Each structure stands twice: as structure tokens, then as C-alpha cells.
């Protein structure tokens, strides 16, 4: 066959599998081969699903029996290891859960499989999604397929690397402060963090419950829209999931932006952004204008507080969420056979102290401190008050514009090892992304170009609550004009 299956996008794979021009088995086997070829070096997957090809065969049987194969029939997907997969090990990138095998699947995974997607494996990530480089994983750092010396971003770095390296055609990531958008940006992908409440959090390892959202990472805007349609919608098992109807985002995509107002907040351009990044964002602004959009100036003065508020809120919620890991019912248990625990407290402390890595411990300590008696008002309460003001700023801003255009990160991907010893510098990576999580609005990253070193640069688009279509359309216009979706990482040649 002359056609390269690995270069097909998700929409084409599904169409061909349904028309029986291609079998799901051939597709799954091809992508599995790519995993076997590259995963040992890239380390995109923590666990590979050995049943993937068998699942694909079942899909083919369904199709030849004339049954409905689903909207994602035969599409190979990678699932971030934060999402529970029944019978398939789920670690959250941590020693704490290194042998945890869920007895049920996350709603997102159930919905993907019900629509015919083939789970290829569990993607590497920063431990408990705490990090921006996929270097804090207990299972080792993941590499960026565009240049193996560089990080793929994080925390959904394995999901990004899997799609960029053609080990899956789509991936699910989770985004608490930028963990879908930043790795998508570093790996030349589309990454969508939906409106808070769009996607059920049931069965997803909880990091910061008021910020976490799962979303798609793909090579095209249309593919992201199609996956998002499948995973969105009310779930009785997550009380925070929204009852709003799920639009046909994919079908409604349009690059005609006449009448659209695009805001560019000056605070997102004023410091620390590299020349290459600035040039790419400006070029995207020109494209949006050429498609009929009007650019408007904007100010979001609370932007500079987003990172400190984020690290307060996220660590407070994490310290509470991660209290469940005590080594009693599941998870890591220390060896007490040679040295017994003096009391119950020591039992917990040793299980937790040995099961968690340093970045997770650092955040638990910070969150515990900020929530402790005497400090709660000054830290957690204050952060939540400013959070409301920040959200209000966005609500006001979206009265003046439909979408916001900004950089996704201040720079391109950085080298493995370059920032891991400086957690504060690592946190500043999230400067443009955390606001969307705090405000609960949707955000996405779309490829915008490359740096002089040929590292990917994406741009970020934000929209008002439940207005995903607007940002998807703006992203679609950028994609259609730049025609960069066919670019293949040079490390794979």
C-alpha cells in the first residue's frame, strides 16, 4: 500500500474504516508497530495495551455485521495515565500507584470506547500531573519527538509525544493549569481544555478538583472537535458536569470569521516572551484579520496574579485530594517487616513519604500550610476572592470580544534537565494558561509555526464559558491558512 496510514488524520481513518476501505486491525497494527519502534526511546507510554489489536478485530467484525461502529470507529488513542482504565494499569505517573489496576473506567474512556476508539496504552505524565515537562514521572522522562533532547512539555507530555510520534492518532490529556495546551504547543498539536464542567471528571485521578478538565490532543482542529463531541456531556456520576447540550463542533467548523472580534490582552505580551513566539502570534493575528475578524485591544490587569493564585488554589486542593493515599486499601505500602511503625501516624507517613516524589511532596506541604489554622484566611480565602475578580474580568472582556488570542507559553520547549532543579522557574511556564482554569473558561493551543531551531510554536485561543465553537473556528482559520498539519517530526525520519 503506497498510502502511509500513520499520516492519516482521525477523521480519515474513521471514514475509511467505516467504508471498509481499511480495517481497524491494519490501523491498530500499524500504530502498534510505531510504538514498538519508538517507545523505548521516546517513553510516551507507561503501559501499552496488549489487547488493542484484538479490540480492533472486534470492531471490524461489528462493521462487517452491519452494526454501528461508532463515531470514532478504529481510531487509535492514547489515554493519559490520570484516567482509570478497567483492567489496564493506571499509575498517575507515581510510585504510589505503580501497581494499581482499576476495576472501572473513567466516563471519558467509556465514551471513547463506546464510539469505537481503540485504546493503545496509558500515556506518560508528570507525577499526579504536577509539572510542566513530564520529567517528574516515576517512570522516567518523556522526550519530544521534534527533538529528543527537549521536553515534550507537561503534564500531558506522554499524550503529546504519542500523537506527535504517530503512536496514536489522538490522545486524551488533562489540564489543571495548562497541562494539555502547553505540551500541545511544544509538540505541534491541537490541544483543547474545555469549559469547566463540559467533560466528566468521574474516574480521573483528582489533582485540583475545581480546575481539572480532560480534553483532546490531535494533529488537526477537526479531529479535536470530533473527540471533544464524544467525551462531553452530562454524567450523573460527576455533579459538576454541565447539563448543557453538546454542539456538533466538527460539523459547524468555519474559517469565515466575519463579525468575530479577537481580543489581544496587552498583559500577555509585555514581558518574557521570545521573539520567535511573538512573531508567530502576530502572524496568527494577521490571519484572523484576513479571514474577516476585527482585532481589539484589551486589558486583563489581574493576569500577573494568576500564577500565584493558581499555585495556592491548586496545592490546597491537591493536599486534600491526595490525603486518600495512605497505603491501607490500595497504593504503595512501605516495608514494615524489618522496622515496625511506632504508631499509626508513622505508618501513614512512611507509606506517603516513600510513595510520593519530591514535586508532589513540595505541593502537599505548601497546600497543607496554606490551609492550616491561622493561615487559611490569608492564603486560601484571599486566593479564592481574587479568583472571583479574575473570572469577572474575563466575563467583562468577552463582552468586548469573542475570542482572546495570546501566546501559549513564553518560549518553545526547553532541554531535558534544564529547569527541573528550579521549581519556581518551572511554575512560570504556566503564566498564560492558568487563568483559563481559574476562570473555568475554555482554552486551546493550535500550531502557529516553528522557531529558528525548528521547534514547534503554538498560539493560545480562549473563549467565554461554553463558547468552544468560536475558538475552534479561529483555530481552524489559522490551520487552513498556515497548512502546517502535514509537518512530520524530523527525529522520526
Amino acid at each position, binding site marked *: 500500500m503506497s498510502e502511509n496510514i500513520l499520516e492519516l488524520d482521525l477523521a480519515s481513518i474513521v471514514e475509511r474504516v467505516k467504508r471498509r476501505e481499511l480495517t481497524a486491525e491494519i490501523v491498530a497494527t500499524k500504530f502498534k508497530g510505531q510504538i514498538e519502534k519508538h517507545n523505548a526511546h521516546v517513553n510516551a507510554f507507561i503501559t501499552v495495551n496488549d489487547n488493542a489489536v484484538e479490540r480492533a478485530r472486534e470492531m471490524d467484525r461489528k462493521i462487517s455485521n452491519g452494526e454501528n461502529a461508532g463515531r470514532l470507529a478504529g481510531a487509535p488513542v492514547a489515554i493519559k495515565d490520570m484516567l482509570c482504565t478497567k483492567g489496564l494499569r493506571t499509575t498517575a505517573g507515581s510510585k504510589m500507584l505503580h501497581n494499581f489496576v482499576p476495576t472501572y473506567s473513567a466516563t471519558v474512556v467509556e465514551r471513547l470506547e463506546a464510539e469505537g476508539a481503540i485504546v493503545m496504552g496509558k500515556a506518560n505524565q508528570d507525577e499526579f500531573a504536577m509539572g510542566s515537562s513530564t520529567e517528574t514521572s516515576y517512570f522516567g522522562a518523556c522526550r519530544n519527538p521534534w527533538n529528543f533532547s527537549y521536553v515534550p512539555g507537561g503534564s500531558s507530555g506522554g499524550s503529546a509525544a504519542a500523537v506527535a510520534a504517530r503512536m496514536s492518532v489522538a490522545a486524551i490529556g488533562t489540564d489543571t493549569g495548562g497541562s494539555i495546551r502547553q505540551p500541545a504547543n511544544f509538540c505541534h498539536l491541537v490541544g483543547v481544555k474545555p469549559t469547566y464542567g463540559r467533560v466528566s471528571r468521574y474516574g480521573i485521578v483528582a489533582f485540583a478538583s475545581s480546575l481539572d478538565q480532560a480534553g483532546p490532543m490531535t494533529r488537526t482542529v477537526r479531529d479535536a472537535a470530533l473527540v471533544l463531541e464524544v467525551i462531553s456531556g452530562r454524567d450523573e456520576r460527576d455533579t459538576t458536569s454541565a447539563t448543557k447540550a453538546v454542539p456538533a463542533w466538527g460539523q459547524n467548523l468555519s474559517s469565515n470569521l466575519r463579525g468575530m472580534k479577537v481580543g489581544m490582552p496587552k498583559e500577555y505580551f509585555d514581558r518574557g516572551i521570545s521573539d520567535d513566539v511573538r512573531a508567530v502570534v502576530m502572524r496568527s493575528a494577521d490571519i484572523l484579520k484576513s479571514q474577516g475578524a476585527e482585532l481589539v485591544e484589551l486589558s486583563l490587569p489581574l493576569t500577573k496574579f494568576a500564577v500565584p493564585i493558581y499555585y495556592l488554589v491548586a496545592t490546597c486542593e491537591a*493536599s486534600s485530594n491526595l490525603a486518600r493515599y495512605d497505603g491501607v486499601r490500595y497504593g504503595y505500602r512501605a516495608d514494615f517487616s524489618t522496622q515496625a511503625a511506632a504508631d499509626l501516624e508513622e505508618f501513614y507517613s*512512611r507509606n506517603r513519604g516513600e510513595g510520593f516524589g519530591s514535586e508532589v511532596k513540595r505541593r502537599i506541604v505548601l497546600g497543607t500550610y496554606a490551609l492550616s489554622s491561622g493561615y487559611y484566611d490569608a492564603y486560601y480565602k484571599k486566593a479564592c476572592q481574587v479568583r472571583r475578580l479574575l473570572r469577572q474580568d474575563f466575563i467583562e472582556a468577552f463582552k468586548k470580544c469573542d475570542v482572546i488570542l495570546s501566546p501559549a507559553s513564553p518560549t518553545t520547549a526547553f532541554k531535558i534537565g534544564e529547569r527541573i532543579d528550579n521549581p519556581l522557574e518551572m511554575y512560570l511556564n504556566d503564566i498564560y494558561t492558568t487563568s483559563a482554569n481559574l476562570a*473555568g473558561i475554555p482554552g486551546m493551543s493550535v500550531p502557529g509555526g516553528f522557531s529558528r531551531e525548528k521547534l514547534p510554536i503554538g498560539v493560545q485561543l480562549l473563549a467565554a464559558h461554553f463558547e468552544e465553537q468560536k475558538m475552534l473556528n479561529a483555530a481552524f482559520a489559522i490551520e487552513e491558512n498556515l497548512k502546517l498539519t502535514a509537518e512530520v517530526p524530523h527525529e522520526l525520519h
Partner: protein
Amino acid sequence: MIDVQSVAHLARLALTADEESAFAAQLNSVVQRFSEVEAVDTHGVVPLITPTDMTLVFREDKKQAFQSAEEAMKNAPERSGNLFRVPPVV
């Protein structure tokens, strides 16, 4: 200065000596960065604890099958029949 040791105790978290000394300095600078936020006037602002407007939804209070005791025990580090087992801790 954050007393890392006593906070770690509150979190039931054993730290290595290296972690303890590194965290003290790092966490103090995070807290210092947060002090910038104090300047924001939040008088009378209701804290936002979840980002979308949602009302509490009640579901019918009826029992439904979830998983068996055997399944629930599957990931236990140590068990004794259908009980989770822990080493003696007194």
C-alpha cells in the same frame, strides 16, 4: 519562615533531610510571591470555590450495583479475607 517539619507532620508525610531543607527555601519564596496578591482589594468579595455557576443537583436515593467486595479488594496491599490488613502499629 514555614516550619516544614511541622507542616509535613500535619500532612502525614515523611520527608528526606534534603527535601526538608530544600522545601523551606522554595516554599518561602512561593509564599513571598503570593504576598503581591495582598495588594488586591477584595473587600466584600465572596470567595470563588468552583468556576461555573452550578446548582446542587439531587438524584434519586436508590441503591445501585457498583462492584463486588472481591473487586474492591483487588488492589489491597495486604488482605485477610475481605478485610484490609495492616501491620501492628501500637
